């Protein structure tokens, strides 16, 4: 167990800036990977974690070069090897699973063929041995019916299954070390939990060492024996997983853990101010100085070294770490949010809404109707009160964005009505809505890189709604823009910037400001924090909550992340395949009894705590289409009771907690089953 497989020594990697300056993005990194051990490398985007992982297989991205240090794999320096020598090691001794590896499979080649290619490349087995090995590998990654699986094409597999194939290919050469760069990012919650469980099993079963790179402490917590925390190109904390997660003794890690929303906490997570410094902008002192609440004058001038603390078996880079020892219980706190007044009037009602993506037949087009017996979204009934935050949760493809688009008028409804203020029906066609209704409902999108025009300055971006809805110009326009920027905690000098000159969190703030520019009644938020780093996510969530409390805005908040939803929402609606499963006040939905699907989702949440393991109660199959009749969840339900689930749409039942559940199982029985 104590044999060291790979050892990184004083590694610095950098690039030459256009002005000819040398800028390092990894600074003096040293760490050891032992045999059979899984090391999690965690850090926010830009912290250098992928650069480190790639260097550990002797790969330096184009434009970068090693400034000093070594990467010793079994005491040979990978950075000094020729590409021929590296070829012998990569795939055979060190294998890698990059992000989206599943999607990177060659689309027109069968799965079996692709694994066979990997085997040919990395082993000396003959044809029959390889064939045997293929089914062995497919078995090992727990793909269903390995015999037929080999003859399928990648597009015939779900995202999680594709990722399993990628794992199988990486295991083809029996590597000693497996590098995983964000291997579950972008997968559904339940799929993610399954893939992580598989990785843990493989680590134990084969004794392969693993390096698991992720921004997600929840995922890292599930697989790692040891955790390395990176910040601005340096290791700031390193130690046994349990110690790092339960008693973080570096202010950054402490803040990071606090900024993660947790299922057990109802309030908003605390956010860290500021953002990670850009490479090259750190001159002297501690790189975390700007954001640290323990900082002293000493930290400003001197940079701390990585210090080994023997009794904790931990390395830490901080002068004042002692103040954090034995502070652990503080991690379980959150900021309470003001709940909205439940007596308020309803501002938006969805009544029997169905939405279909089916192409209209010619005849139906003439009659302007859509005939689709099994639409993507069906029978949605939700009444939204003024000033509340209602969340729609569900896995990818559950129809969350589809519903938002319909509310915004971007997608026609098939049946049903969307009623706004005083039961006035909103046309489902954007062009038919009056300007004031358009103003009243605004959207914020997931990825600010896509939702902000890259060729517009912040000023131009914010002036669009102001000009369109309020005809502002000149000084008045400018004053309004500055006010908006202030509202989202950005200074006036941001006006002349382009989106590419802003950090992820700043971009999303601009997007929030643009939505608020219209003085809307309702804001539709589509996964607004999923593209952001956790510490930034916490800040944006707090900002949204603050704005809502000040201005009385109503949010419809779409997310796949149950912990984020728990933190921000007053009420939750759970969707599966475009059908509602459960709806109720959020504190109650997170209690039992819940709908079997809610139970599955809650079980799959990855908490940044090694003691809370996900409960995998259902298979992570992906269904293409909702079932024609019966319960929408029949295909995956772990509590399915029989034919009735396949044939009859379940009735709504109201629990004593006030959450409504749509299931054939009696609600009291459900409660006792879930005890």
């Amino acid at each position, binding site marked *: 167990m104590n044999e060291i497989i790979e050892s990184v020594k004083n590694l610095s990697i950098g690039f030459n800036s256009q002005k000819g300056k040398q800028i390092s993005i990894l600074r003096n990194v040293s760490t050891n990977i032992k045999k059979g051990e899984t090391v999690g490398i965690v850090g926010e985007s830009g912290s250098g974690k992928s650069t480190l992982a790639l260097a550990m297989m002797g790969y330096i991205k184009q434009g970068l070069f090693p400034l000093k240090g070594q990467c010793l794999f079994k005491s040979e320096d990978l950075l000094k090897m020729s590409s021929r020598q590296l070829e012998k090691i990569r795939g055979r001794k060190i294998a890698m699973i990059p992000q989206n590896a599943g999607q990177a499979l060659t689309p027109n080649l069968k799965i079996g063929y692709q694994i066979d290619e990997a085997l040919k490349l990395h082993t000396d087995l003959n044809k029959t041995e390889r064939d045997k090995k293929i089914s062995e590998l497919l078995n090992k990654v727990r793909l269903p019916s390995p015999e037929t699986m080999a003859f399928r094409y990648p597009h015939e597999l779900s995202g999680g299954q594709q990722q399993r194939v990628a794992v199988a290919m990486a295991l083809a050469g029996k590597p000693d070390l497996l590098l995983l760069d964000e291997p579950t990012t972008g997968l559904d919650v339940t799929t993610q939990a399954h893939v992580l469980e598989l990785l843990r099993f493989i680590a134990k079963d084969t004794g392969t060492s693993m390096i698991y790179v992720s921004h997600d402490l929840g995922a890292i917590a599930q697989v790692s024996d040891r955790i390395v925390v990176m910040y601005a190109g340096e290791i700031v904390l390193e130690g046994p997983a349990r110690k790092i997660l339960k008693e973080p003794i570096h202010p950054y890690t402490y803040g990071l853990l606090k900024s993660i929303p947790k299922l057990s906490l109802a309030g908003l997570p605390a956010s860290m101010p500021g953002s990670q410094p*850009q490479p090259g902008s750190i001159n002297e002192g501690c790189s975390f100085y700007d954001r640290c609440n323990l900082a002293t004058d000493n930290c400003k001038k001197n940079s701390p070294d990585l210090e080994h603390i023997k009794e904790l078996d931990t390395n830490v880079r901080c002068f004042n770490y002692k103040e954090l020892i034995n502070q652990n219980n503080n991690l379980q706190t959150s900021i309470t949010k003001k709940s909205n007044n439940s007596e308020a009037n309803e501002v938006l009602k969805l009544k029997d809404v169905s939405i279909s993506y089916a192409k209209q037949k010619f005849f139906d087009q003439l009659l302007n109707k859509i005939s689709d017996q099994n639409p993507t979204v069906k029978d949605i009934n939700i009444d939204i009160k003024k000033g509340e935050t209602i969340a729609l949760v569900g896995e990818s493809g559950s129809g969350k964005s589809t519903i938002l688009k319909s509310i915004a008028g971007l997608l026609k409804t098939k049946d049903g009505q969307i009623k706004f203020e005083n039961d006035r029906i909103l046309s489902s066609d954007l062009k038919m809505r009056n300007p004031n209704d358009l103003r009243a409902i605004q959207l914020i*999108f997931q990825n600010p890189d896509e939702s902000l025009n890259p060729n517009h300055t912040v000023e131009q971006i914010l002036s669009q*709604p102001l000009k369109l809805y309020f005809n502002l110009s000149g000084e008045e326009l400018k004053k309004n823009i500055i006010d908006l920027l202030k509202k989202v905690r950005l200074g006036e000098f941001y006006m002349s910037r382009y989106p590419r000159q*802003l*950090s992820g969190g700043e971009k999303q703030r601009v997007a929030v400001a643009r939505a608020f520019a219209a003085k809307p009644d309702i804001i539709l938020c589509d996964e607004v924090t999923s593209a952001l780093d956790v510490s930034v996510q916490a800040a944006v969530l707090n900002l949204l909550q603050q704005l809502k409390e000040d201005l009385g805005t109503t949010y419809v908040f779409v997310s796949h992340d149950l912990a984020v939803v728990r933190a921000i929402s007053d009420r939750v609606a759970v969707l599966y395949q475009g059908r509602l499963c459960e709806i109720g006040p959020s504190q109650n939905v997170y209690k039992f009894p819940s709908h079997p699907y809610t139970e599955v989702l809650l079980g799959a949440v990855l908490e940044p705590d090694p003691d809370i393991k996900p409960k995998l109660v259902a298979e992570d199959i992906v269904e293409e289409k909702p079932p024609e009749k019966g319960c929408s969840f029949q295909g995956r339900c772990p509590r399915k009771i029989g034919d009735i689930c396949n044939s009859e749409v379940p009735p709504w039942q109201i629990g004593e907690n006030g959450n409504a559940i749509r299931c054939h199982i009696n609600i009291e029985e459900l409660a006792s089953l879930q005890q």
Partner: protein
Amino acid sequence: MESNLITEDKQKNKLEKAFEILKTMASKPSGLIGLTIVLFHVVLALISPYIAPYDYKAISPNTMLLAPSAEHWFGTDSLGRDVFTRTILGGRTALTVTFFGSLIALLWGGLLGIFCGLVGGKIDDVVMRVVDAFLSIPWILAMLLIVSLLGTSTEVLIPALGFFYGKGIVRVARAATHDVIAKDFIVSARARGHSNMSIIWNEIIPNVRDAILVEGAMRWSWMLLGFSSLSFLGFGVSPPTPDWGLMISNARGLMSFAYWSVIAPIVGLSSLIIGINLTADAFAKALGIDRSTKAPV
């Protein structure tokens, strides 16, 4: 990476931006060479009438096919005209015709491409089919038909060339629009209720402009070659106006013993084409467009 740093603060006005792009283009040797060649040709075209040592149309039987000498640097042609004079004047028509031709190609190609990308669906299909069908006729035949019906005046040549070279631009503009239109900022603008015109003008054009301009610059060099081929075949510029294509055509029979009269126009033509090509490439790189991945001709 550095340009992403949050330190670049001031907003640059258009002129400064253009200057910046020029600077980036000139920072690589290939871009600098391209720019220099193009600049040289443009300046030459502007001043050549004033610096030409001889009358370009003065025929003189006494000076037929003289080899290069101090008086006639590039020698004389079969009619005794000074080749140097004719060479430095020979790019003027080609440059003017193809420059305006490219503008026309950019305009119709760009607008139609944006339109097709925007509306999509059936209309897009039909328009693209028609464009393809029209242009699957070999362009040179079609050009010959046009000039034989309408004559070879620049009023005919400019729109005709512009029309034929717009096809590639339609495709690029359409593809670029397709890319942009799926972005959330367009959805966002639609959801706010902006008019279609405002969306095209504010959201789409700024994001497809660069790709279209680069394609236009590329097409310019091809059009130059096309135009010279027409002249070579006798359907471009009419004699005695000096033109490289025409000069090459007239002198090619004499190549074996009076090589000078053909080399000078060839160097003129090919250097300009290479220059424009290099410039267009540098332009694309300066704007961050990778032509190697995005050339759906």
